[in-house]
């Protein structure tokens, strides 16, 4: 290291707090516009690519954005539901393959996605371990969900109650993990996938309990009315579906009326897509949306905001640069005596300039390095963090 570089470093280390403030300010003004742009572009690419991979989405009338965010990115806002029969209706048209979704419940922070086996193929999801759910009460986890929940194949996950104060509400269901999916860098990584019927069990539309016809359940019988046995509150309901009790599980009501938050429709071709959209033009009971169009609208707004923020950051950046320049100039002025001493003991003007210049170079180089590091981190983890922040 040259003498002047050494002296410059000693100066910066001696004034470490002043240097740290300066470096932080410069890092932020360098990072903010670039980092924000990278973050927005990358997030938008991920959001757009998933939307473009989802041809049509059918859901209850209301906010298309909410419908898309819940169905594609498993956002926490649950849209109004549609009857499951809509899935059958789509299939009945012969124009598209329906994939029903019921995204309402969670295992801690991880969304439970009730769907059908077609979903895995549609999203090109591969198993890293185990197998897909085969019966009620089984679950397969996205890679990130398995890591977050710290469970693997053969272990269990428990659905979270929607409200701890609602004792009449949804009871937790203990589910066996039969598989873990490969990492896909999509929202599927964070999901807990179950058959849609399992999601209905979580909701309480289906349940299993003691067989009241058996003698050991006699205490649970409230009264008998002919062939009908009415149980009392002591009847034990199962909170886990096992091979021993699966036969006791049953649904009350008409399954075709059971809820779904959306149906993904995968049309055979463009014509089928157009025809299907035509059939839902009325939109009074259900709406059909093209997720790519919905996301394009949403991202258009985001890009506009981004432009304003970047412009603002650039102005703040210029002001900060001007301030930093002022700090350097004042520092030079304050150090005129030091420069004079260095000159008297033989320091050339070039060496003295190199000393002061090295300090500026070190500060700028450090700020640039940190800004580059932050930008890399933003490009690597930013989109994931942004999704977590906005609940997608």
């Amino acid at each position: 290291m040259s003498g002047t570089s050494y002296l410059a470093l000693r100066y910066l280390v001696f004034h470490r707090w002043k240097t740290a403030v300066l470096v932080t300010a410069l890092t932020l003004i360098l990072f903010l516009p670039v980092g924000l742009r990278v973050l927005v572009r990358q997030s938008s690419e991920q959001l757009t690519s998933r939307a473009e991979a989802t041809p049509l989405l059918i859901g209850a009338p209301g906010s298309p954005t909410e419908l898309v965010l819940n169905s594609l990115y498993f956002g926490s806002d649950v849209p109004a539901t549609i009857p499951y029969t809509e899935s059958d209706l789509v299939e009945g048209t012969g124009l598209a393959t329906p994939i029903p979704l019921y995204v309402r419940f969670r295992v801690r922070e991880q969304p439970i996605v009730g769907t059908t086996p077609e979903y895995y193929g549609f999203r090109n999801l591969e198993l890293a371990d185990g197998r897909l759910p085969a019966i009620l009460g089984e679950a397969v986890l996205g890679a990130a969900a398995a890591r977050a929940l710290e469970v693997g194949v053969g272990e269990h996950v428990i659905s979270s109650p929607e409200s701890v104060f609602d004792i009449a509400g949804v009871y937790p269901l203990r589910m066996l993990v039969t598989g873990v999916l490969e990492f896909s860098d999509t929202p599927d990584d964070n999901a807990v996938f179950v058959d849609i019927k399992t999601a209905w069990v979580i909701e309480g539309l289906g349940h299993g309990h003691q067989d009241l016809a058996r003698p050991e359940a006699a205490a649970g019988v409230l009264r008998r009315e002919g062939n009908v046995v009415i149980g009392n509150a002591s009847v034990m309901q199962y909170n886990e579906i096992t091979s021993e009790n699966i036969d006791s599980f049953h649904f009350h009501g008409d399954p075709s009326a059971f809820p779904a938050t959306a149906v993904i429709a995968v049309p055979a071709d463009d014509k089928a897509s157009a025809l299907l959209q035509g059939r839902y033009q009325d939109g009074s009971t259900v709406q059909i949306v093209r997720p790519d169009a919905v996301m394009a609208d949403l991202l258009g707004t985001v890009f506009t905001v981004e432009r304003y923020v970047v412009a603002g950051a650039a102005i703040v950046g210029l002001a900060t640069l001007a301030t930093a320049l002022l700090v350097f100039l004042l520092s030079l002025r304050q150090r005129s005596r030091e420069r004079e001493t260095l000159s008297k003991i033989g320091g050339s003007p070039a060496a003295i300039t190199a000393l002061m210049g090295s300090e500026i170079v070190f500060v700028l180089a450090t700020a640039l390095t940190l800004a580059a590091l932050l930008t890399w981190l933003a490009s690597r983890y930013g989109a994931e963090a942004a999704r977590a922040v906005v609940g997608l």
Partner: protein
Amino acid sequence: MIGIRDLEFAYTDSDFRLRIEELSVAPASTTAFIGPSGSGKTTLLNLIAGILLPDSGTVETNGTVVTDLSERERRAFRVEGVGLVFQEFELLEYLTVLDNILLPYRINSALRLEPAVRDRAAALAERVGIADKLNRLPRRLSQGERQRVAVCRAVLTDPPLLLTDEPTGNLDPVNREKVLDILFDYVHESGTTLVSVTHDHEILERFAEVVDFRSFHAFGPSA
């Protein structure tokens, strides 16, 4: 030796004017410049060191006519031939004692900072009693210790000429004697020429020569 002839110097922004017809300082001697403030003592030190150039006349030091040298050559002359000690010590607050002593080698690319130089810096520090403070910053030193660091810095290159400007001006009597002992021991051992500006008449007996600037009739507005 130092020889000055027909020297005239004036600052552009003041009425001060220094005029010396002839002045010589013998080699390996100790000389004190005394006189009232503003009489040109420090200015003459700067002229001898080649920091300032006279308007006319010559300054010759150890066979080199300083006034004939270019800026770059005068700098080289200063690096190799002149040690400077200032009244305010002029240590850099952000450098340790050792780095302050080594400063001439850090700021001059012509000088190579080799292990032998570091050893010499440590030996000088040992000699002036600050060896245990090499890693301290100047703010943690006493005034006397700071001036000792400044002396070490000035003599590190083993210059044949040592110019000191009020070297004891900021010191208490005890430290003043210590610093003078260090300076005089060094110049007597090394054969260095010492020229010192001072207001302190108590220390004049230590010097072989005393030059009173009042004798020059050389200050005040030019006629």
